[in-house]
C-alpha cells in the first residue's frame, strides 16, 4: 500500500513537470529559435568563412558580419531568456487568477516547486544544449566538406565543451537566482524588478565592499582583486560572466608554466563552488516558496524585508564608493534619496504612511555610513594584515616587477619552500608597515637603494578555492630570499624549460593561432603534432643581438631538457659567480649552464656576440642594480620611471600629484648619492628647465664625457638618464668629485 502511494506521488511530480513543460511551449519555441539563430548560425558563418578562405573565394564581408551580429544578439537574448522563463514558470506566484488552479492540484508544495523549477530549467537548458550539439555538428561537417588538414576539429571538442560548461553553469545560476527573486514577490513589476536587482546587487555589494576594504587601508591591497575572488565569481551570473571572460581570454592564466593543472584546478573549483552556491540559492528559494502563503499573491513583497535588503544594498554600494573615494557625500545621499523615495512610492502604491519611508531611509543611511566608518576605522577590518598560512595555500602566482622583461617568471608555484618564502616576506613587509620605527634598522645592502625598488605581487590560491592578492614595493634586498627560493626551486626549472619548448613552437612563422586556452593539458602535444620544427630566439649576454634559428623537435627537446637540468643544478654560488652567457627567448643562460650550452652547440646554434652595431640599444633603458646583479650581471629595469623609493621604501608611492612629488624630491635631496639625473626622474613639472640647467653645467658635461654606455660586473656611482639613454658613471678618475659638485649645486 505504501509503495503504491509512493509511486502515485512520484508520478504526480512527473505529471506536473510534463504539464509545465507543455504550459511553456510557446516560450520553448521562441527560445529554441533564438538558440538555433545563436551558436549554430555562428558556427555556420565560421565554416563559410573558412570555406571561402581555403578555396580563395571572394565574399561579401558585410552580409556575413550582419548574420554574425544577429547570432551574437540571439545568444545574448537566449541566455537572458532564463529570466523570462523563471518569470513565466512561476507566474502563479504573482498572478492572482492562477493561484487556485495551481495550488489546488494534487501536489505537495515540494513537488510543485521542484517540478516547476526543473521544467523551467529544461525549457531553458535543453534548447541551448541542442544548439551546442548542433554547432559542433555544423563545425564537424564543415571541416569534412572543406577538407582542410590544418586543424583537427576534434582536438577542440573537449576544450570547447569545457568552456561551454562555464556558460551553461552561469545560465543555471541566472535561472536559479531569478526563481529565488520571484518567490518573494507578489506582483509582476516586483518580480521583474527583483530579478534584475538580485542579479546585479549580489556582485555589486561584493565588489563595492571589496573595493571599500582595499581603499580603507590600501597597503598591499588591490582594488580589483575582488574581481578574481570566488566570492565574486561564483555567486552571480555577472561573476560567472567575468570568470568566463577571463577563461576565454586566457589572461587569467597567461604565462603560467603549470598552465593545464592550474586551469583544471581553477575550473573544477569554480564549478564545484558555483554548484554549491546554486544549491544554496535553490534551497533558499524553496524555503521562501514553502513558507509563502497562496493568499500572498498581489501583496506588495511577500517578504518585505527582501525589499529593504535590496534597497539598503543599493544605498550601501553608493555610499561606500563615494565615501571611500572621498567624493561628495551630499551627492551620494541625494542619489540614494531619489532612488529610495521613487521605489517607496511604487511599492506603497502612493504616499500611505510615507513618513516611515523617511525613517527607513535614514536608518539605511545610518547603517551604511556606520559600516563605512567602521571599515575605515578598522583599516578595512585589518584585511591588509592577512597572511594565509602556507599550509592553506594550494599555489601562489608570483610576479616580481622590474624583472619581467628578463625572467617572465610570473608563474604559479606549489612548492612549499617558495610559498613559505612568499608568506615570510609578506609578514616582514607588514611588520615594517606596522612598526615604521624599525625600518632604518634594515641593513642598507645597496648604497643606491634609493632607486632600488621591486614590486612583488602575489596571488595566493587557497585550498578553499578563494584567492588573496597582494602587491608590495620593497628594496631588492628584501626580496632576495624570495628570489633565491624561486630561482632554485625545481618548479621554476620545470616551468622555464617547458615554457622554452612551448614558446619555440609558438615562434614558428606559420603559428598564426593561439590554442593555449583551448587545449589545456595537451598543449605541448598538440603543438608537436602540428609542427615538425620549432624556432629558437637566442640573444647575446645583453639580450640585444637576437638571432632566430629553426631547429628540429628533437633539438628543442634536448635544449629544454638540458636547461631544466642546469636550472635544477644551479646553486647560490654558481649564480653569484657566473656571468650571463646568453638568453634563450627571455630566459637567462649562465656560463655555468654547460648542459644547455652543449645542447645549443649540438643543435648547431652559436651564441651571438655583443656587437657595436647595437651600441645604442645596449645603452638604452639600462640600469645596474647590485642585488639583482647578484643574479643577473646585466639587468633591465624598464618599469621604474614612474616611481622610486625613499626611506619609506616599503610603501607604494606613485607620482600622482604635485605635492607628493615635491615631498619625495626633498627627501631625495638629503641623500648622499644620486642615481638618476634627468628628465625622467624629475618627471613632467620642471622637465625642460632642469634639462637646460644640467646640460649647461661644465661639471655635468665632463661627467657625461666620462660616462660609459654599458657596464658589466662593476657598480656604477650613478646613472645619468637623458632621453631614454643611460650613461653609467663609474667610480674612476674624478667622477666622484664631479658628482659631489653637481649634487651640491643641485640641492
Amino acid at each position, binding site marked *: 500500500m505504501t509503495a503504491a*502511494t509512493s509511486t*502515485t*506521488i512520484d508520478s*504526480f511530480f512527473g*505529471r*506536473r513537470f*510534463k*504539464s509545465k513543460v*507543455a504550459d511553456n511551449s510557446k516560450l520553448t519555441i521562441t527560445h529554441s529559435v533564438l538558440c538555433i539563430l545563436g551558436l549554430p548560425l555562428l558556427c555556420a558563418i565560421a565554416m563559410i568563412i573558412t570555406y571561402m578562405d581555403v578555396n580563395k573565394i571572394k565574399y561579401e564581408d558585410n552580409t556575413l558580419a550582419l548574420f554574425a551580429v544577429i547570432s551574437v544578439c540571439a545568444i545574448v537574448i537566449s541566455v537572458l531568456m532564463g529570466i523570462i522563463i523563471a518569470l513565466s514558470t512561476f507566474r502563479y506566484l504573482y498572478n492572482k*487568477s*492562477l*493561484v*487556485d*488552479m495551481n*495550488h*489546488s*492540484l*494534487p*501536489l*505537495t*508544495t515540494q*513537488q510543485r516547486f521542484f517540478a516547476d523549477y526543473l521544467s523551467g530549467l529544461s525549457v531553458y537548458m535543453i534548447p541551448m544544449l541542442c544548439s551546442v550539439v548542433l554547432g559542433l555538428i555544423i563545425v564537424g561537417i564543415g571541416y569534412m566538406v572543406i577538407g582542410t588538414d590544418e586543424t583537427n576539429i576534434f582536438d577542440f571538442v573537449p576544450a570547447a565543451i569545457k568552456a561551454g560548461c562555464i556558460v551553461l553553469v552561469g545560465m543555471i545560476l541566472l535561472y536559479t537566482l531569478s526563481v529565488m527573486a520571484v518567490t518573494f514577490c507578489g506582483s509582476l513589476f516586483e518580480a521583474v524588478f527583483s530579478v534584475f536587482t538580485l542579479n546585479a546587487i549580489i556582485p555589486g555589494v561584493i565588489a563595492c565592499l571589496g573595493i571599500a576594504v582595499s581603499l580603507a587601508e590600501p597597503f598591499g591591497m588591490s582594488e580589483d582583486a575582488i574581481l578574481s575572488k570566488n566570492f565574486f565569481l561564483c555567486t552571480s551570473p555577472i561573476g560567472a560572466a567575468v570568470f568566463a571572460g577571463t577563461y576565454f581570454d586566457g589572461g587569467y592564466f597567461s604565462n603560467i608554466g603549470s598552465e593545464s593543472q592550474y586551469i583544471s584546478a581553477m575550473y573544477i573549483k569554480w564549478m564545484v563552488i558555483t554548484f554549491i552556491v546554486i544549491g544554496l540559492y535553490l534551497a533558499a528559494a524553496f524555503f521562501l516558496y514553502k513558507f509563502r*502563503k*497562496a*493568499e500572498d499573491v498581489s501583496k506588495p513583497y511577500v517578504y518585505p524585508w527582501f525589499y529593504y535588503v535590496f534597497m539598503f544594498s543599493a544605498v550601501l554600494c553608493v555610499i561606500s564608493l563615494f565615501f571611500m573615494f572621498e567624493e561628495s557625500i551630499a551627492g551620494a545621499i541625494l542619489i540614494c534619496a531619489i532612488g529610495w523615495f521613487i521605489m517607496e512610492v511604487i511599492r506603497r502604491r502612493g504616499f500611505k504612511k510615507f513618513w516611515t519611508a523617511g525613517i527607513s531611509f535614514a536608518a539605511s543611511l545610518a547603517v551604511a555610513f556606520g559600516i563605512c566608518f567602521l571599515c575605515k576605522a578598522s583599516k578595512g577590518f585589518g584585511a591588509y594584515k592577512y597572511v594565509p598560512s602556507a599550509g592553506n595555500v594550494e599555489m601562489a602566482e608570483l610576479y616580481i616587477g622590474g624583472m619581467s622583461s628578463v625572467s617572465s617568471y610570473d608563474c604559479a608555484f606549489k612548492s612549499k619552500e617558495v610559498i613559505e618564502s612568499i608568506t615570510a616576506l609578506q609578514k616582514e613587509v607588514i611588520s615594517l608597515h606596522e612598526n615604521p620605527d624599525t625600518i632604518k634598522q634594515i641593513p642598507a645592502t645597496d648604497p643606491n637603494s634609493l632607486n632600488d625598488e621591486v614590486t612583488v605581487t602575489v596571488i595566493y590560491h587557497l585550498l578553499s578555492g578563494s584567492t588573496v592578492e597582494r602587491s608590495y614595493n620593497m628594496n631588492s634586498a628584501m626580496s632576495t630570499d624570495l628570489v633565491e627560493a624561486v630561482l632554485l626551486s625545481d618548479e621554476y626549472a620545470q616551468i622555464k624549460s617547458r615554457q622554452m619548448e612551448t614558446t619555440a613552437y609558438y615562434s614558428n612563422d606559420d603559428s598564426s593561432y593561439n590554442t593555449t586556452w583551448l587545449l589545456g593539458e595537451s598543449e605541448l602535444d598538440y603543438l608537436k603534432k602540428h609542427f615538425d620544427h620549432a624556432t629558437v630566439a637566442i640573444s647575446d649576454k645583453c639580450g640585444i643581438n637576437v638571432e632566430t634559428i629553426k631547429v628540429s623537435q628533437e633539438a628543442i627537446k634536448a635544449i629544454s631538457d638540458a636547461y631544466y637540468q642546469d636550472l635544477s643544478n644551479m646553486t647560490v654560488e654558481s649564480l653569484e659567480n657566473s656571468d650571463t652567457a646568453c638568453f634563450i627567448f627571455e630566459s637567462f643562460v649562465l656560463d655555468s649552464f654547460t648542459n644547455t650550452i652543449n645542447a645549443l652547440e649540438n643543435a648547431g646554434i652559436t651564441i651571438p656576440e655583443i656587437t657595436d652595431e647595437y651600441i645604442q640599444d645596449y645603452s638604452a633603458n639600462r640600469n645596474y642594480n647590485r642585488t639583482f646583479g647578484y643574479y643577473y650581471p646585466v639587468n633591465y629595469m624598464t618599469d621604474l620611471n614612474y616611481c622610486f623609493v625613499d626611506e619609506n621604501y616599503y610603501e607604494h608611492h606613485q607620482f600622482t600629484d604635485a605635492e607628493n612629488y615635491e615631498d619625495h624630491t626633498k627627501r631625495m635631496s638629503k641623500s648622499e648619492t644620486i642615481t638618476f639625473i634627468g628628465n625622467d626622474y624629475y618627471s613632467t613639472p620642471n622637465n625642460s628647465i632642469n634639462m637646460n640647467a644640467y646640460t649647461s653645467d661644465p661639471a655635468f658635461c665632463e661627467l657625461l664625457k666620462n660616462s660609459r654606455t654599458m657596464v658589466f660586473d662593476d657598480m656604477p656611482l650613478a646613472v645619468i638618464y637623458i632621453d631614454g639613454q643611460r650613461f653609467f658613471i663609474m667610480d674612476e678618475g674624478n667622477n666622484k668629485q664631479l658628482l659631489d659638485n653637481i649634487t651640491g649645486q643641485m640641492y
Partner: protein
Amino acid sequence: MIELKNTVKKFDDYTALDGIDLTIEKGASFGLLGSNGAGKSTILRLLSGIYRADGGQVLIDGKEAYDDVSIKQRVFFINDETIQFTGYTLKKLKDYYKLFYPNFSEEVFENLRSKVKLPLDKKLSTFSKGMKRQAIVIIGLACQPDYLLLDEAFDGLDPTMRIIVKKMLVDAMIDRQMTTIISSHNLKEINEVCDTAALIHDGKVIFARDIDSVKGSIHKIQVVFPKDDSGNTPEYTQADFPDLEVLHFERNQSIYYIIAKGDEDVIKAVFAPKRPMLLEVIPLTLEEIFIYELEVLGYDSSDINND
C-alpha cells in the same frame, strides 16, 4: 467526511474565519451561505488545500487537507473565476487535469460535453463566461472526485444551462455518493440542490443544519389581536412574547408581522393566551431566512432603504 475544528484563518490583521466548527457528512450536498466576505470561499480554499489554516484543523476523512496529495486528488475545486483557463482549449484543459486526477473518465467527459455541446479545440478565451463555467464543471465532474467544491457555481449560466448543470451535479451525487459543497449567493439554487446548509457571517458559523429543518425552524407569523374592552387595538411589543425567539418584529396598524425561530406548534402556543383573531404561520424561503438571520447580526439593508 469533512471536519473543520476550531479553524482560524487570518489575512494579515483580518480574521476571515474565527474558530469555526463545521462537519459535512459524506455524500451530502452542502450549501455555504453567507454575506460577502463572510468566509465561504476561504472555507472552500482551505478544503482544497490552497490555503493553510492558521489555527485549528481542516480534516477530510480524518486527514489534514493541506499538502496531502492523497486527499487533494479526491477534491476538485471550481473557483468563481474563469480567467485562468483562457489560454487553454477544452481538450488541453481536459488533458491538463486528466494528468492529476487518476479517476478521470473520458466517458463521463464526453457524455457531459455532448449535453452542453462545447467545442473541444476552440480556445476558452473565445468562450462566453457561461461556457467557460460549463467547461470547468464538466471537467470537474469528469475527474470524479469524492468532494466537489463549487464557488458561485451557477454564476454566468443561463436558466436552461443552470438546469442542465444542476442535473449533472445531482446525477453525480446520486451515482457516486459525491459530496458537493456549493457556495452561492443564489439561495434558490442552494435550496434546490443542497440538502444541508451553513450560514457563515464574520468568520463564524451562524447555523449548519439540513435545509428542511432550517426552513422549519424559522417562521413568518401574521397575527391580528382582538380589540380590548375599550375598543382599542392592543399594542404589543417584542417584550410581550418572552418565550419567542424573535428575529423581526413589525406592526402595521392591527396586523403584526413577526419572524421567529421555533416549532410551529410552540409558536402557536405562545400566542394562544392572547386569543388572536387571526394567526397565520408561514414557512420562510431560504432567502428570507438569510436576510432575517443576518439582520439580527446587524447585516441588513434597512439603512439604505431608509435613505
